[in-house]
């Protein structure tokens, strides 16, 4: 009897150890469609945050990009240029993405993460010094930091997860040093494999387009399409990266919101997890989508 108890106890310990190994040391049950990300400092040596005293807390992030089917189920319409249930939703502004997060939270009985004031122009949304007031929407959006609802990742969370978190192998792209293994980008997203220099005319002629989510290899955390397919909105304003801080949320003001990960339309270097792109919050294109997050 005693031996059986010891054996059972040993099996339980082994079981937790195995579960821990797949969930980066913590046997946390992630909500459907999300992956638990164990927080900490940046292990990825190619990260902008590596060695900069930045830590992120535990959080959940979408295993896949938000699909057109998921979008339509919440919003009742599909803005995408390219049609397919399992394609990532695109042609969405930063505001659209924020609104989706809240509506889906309400639909699932979660507390919305964002307070969206559509009647007040956000004073922190500044004119672009070069292009002027491109953003005519300028909703004032604030956060409920403790809410359990869906939200966009911060730029730091996104880069941490794309870089493999605590399991990072410091790949050039998210999950590999070979871009074609993990990313859809302009050379491999059409009828033929393209070489030479980027040309929009050639990209169009080759019928490049977004691809079904999860159709390339995942990264160290089991996340798909963190490099390529469609670019992903983050919460932050574009600005200087913060150092020596926990859970940075970016500049208090700005004129462009950060996107990360690159997409099917652009070139490979812009799919690297360390590349920082940005666009006015009302900007959109057939290569602009997003991925969900939630607090732990």
């Amino acid at each position, binding site marked *: 009897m005693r031996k059986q108890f010891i054996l059972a106890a040993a099996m339980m310990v082994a079981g937790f150890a195995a579960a821990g190994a797949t969930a980066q040391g913590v046997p946390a049950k992630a909500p459907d469609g999300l992956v638990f990300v164990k927080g900490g400092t940046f292990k990825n040596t190619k990260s902008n945050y590596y060695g900069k005293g930045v830590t992120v807390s535990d959080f959940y992030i979408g295993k896949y990009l938000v699909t057109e089917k998921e979008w339509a189920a919440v919003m009742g319409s599909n803005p995408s240029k390219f049609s397919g249930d399992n394609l990532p939703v695109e042609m969405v502004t930063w505001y659209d993405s924020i609104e989706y997060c809240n509506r889906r939270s309400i639909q699932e009985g979660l507390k919305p993460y964002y307070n969206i004031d559509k009647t007040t122009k956000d004073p922190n949304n500044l004119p*672009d010094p*070069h*292009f002027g007031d*491109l953003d005519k929407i300028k909703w004032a959006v604030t956060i409920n930091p403790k809410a359990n609802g869906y939200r966009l990742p911060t730029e730091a969370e996104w880069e941490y997860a794309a870089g493999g978190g605590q399991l990072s192998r410091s790949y050039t792209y998210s999950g590999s040093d070979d871009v074609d293994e993990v990313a859809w980008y302009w050379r491999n997203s059409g009828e033929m494999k*393209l*070489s*030479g*220099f*980027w*040309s*929009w*005319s*050639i*990209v169009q*002629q*080759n019928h490049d387009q977004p691809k079904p989510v999860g159709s390339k290899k995942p990264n160290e955390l089991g996340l798909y399409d963190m490099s390529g397919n469609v*670019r992903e909105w983050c919460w932050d304003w574009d600005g200087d990266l913060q150092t020596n801080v926990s859970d940075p949320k970016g500049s208090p003001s700005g004129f462009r919101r950060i996107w990360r990960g*690159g*997409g*099917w*339309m*652009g*070139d490979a270097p*812009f799919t690297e997890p360390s590349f920082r*792109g940005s*666009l*006015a919050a009302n*900007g*959109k*294109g*057939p*290569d*602009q989508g997003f991925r969900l997050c939630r607090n732990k």
Partner: protein
Amino acid sequence: MRSISFVSVLRAILVALVVVGCVTMAANAQTVYNNGTGTNNGYFYSLYSSGGSATMTFSSSYAGNYAISWSGVNDVVGGKGWSTGSAQTIGYNVGSVSGENNLSIYGWLTNPLAEYYICEFGSVANGTYKGSVSSDGHSYSTYEHQQVNQPSIQGTQTFEQYLDNWGGSGTGSNHTVTTANHFNHWRSLGMTVGNFNYQILGTEAWGGRSGYVNATVW
């Protein structure tokens, strides 16, 4: 288990030989029909056309040479150059050119993102006139043109086009483009010159035209 017939094996071998043959032909191809990108003699090249027809060939005598002929195209874009540009002095010789809209040093910059033309034949004038710059014995008119939510090497972006327009070059003789003069001029106008992406001597034509260009870049 299904048995494999002799005919099946023979068919598979023939298919494999045809595939290998096609790949070999493609690798050695010195003629591009309508659309193609790649490297030739150490230079990047690219040809795109829609409607009509276009053919690009390369001379074995000059590494930077290319010739494109087109007929009845809605649009044709082709050229040869470098994967990473620089503020280099670019030499070129255009043997002949006809039916083009422009022949330019063309490239991209990042941080901030910008697309640029230094136009030697034809015209790229568009957007806001910013002034003029003298370089290599002639004067270029500088324009800046905003592109909002448009395709780019980074995907959909909002960026500037920097356009230095001359168009008075001639055929059959060597010319230089001291690109540093253009980049410095743009800087003086507040048009930031960031990091270099690719840089080519490119030819564009559109609107149902037919034409030909034979050019060498170095």
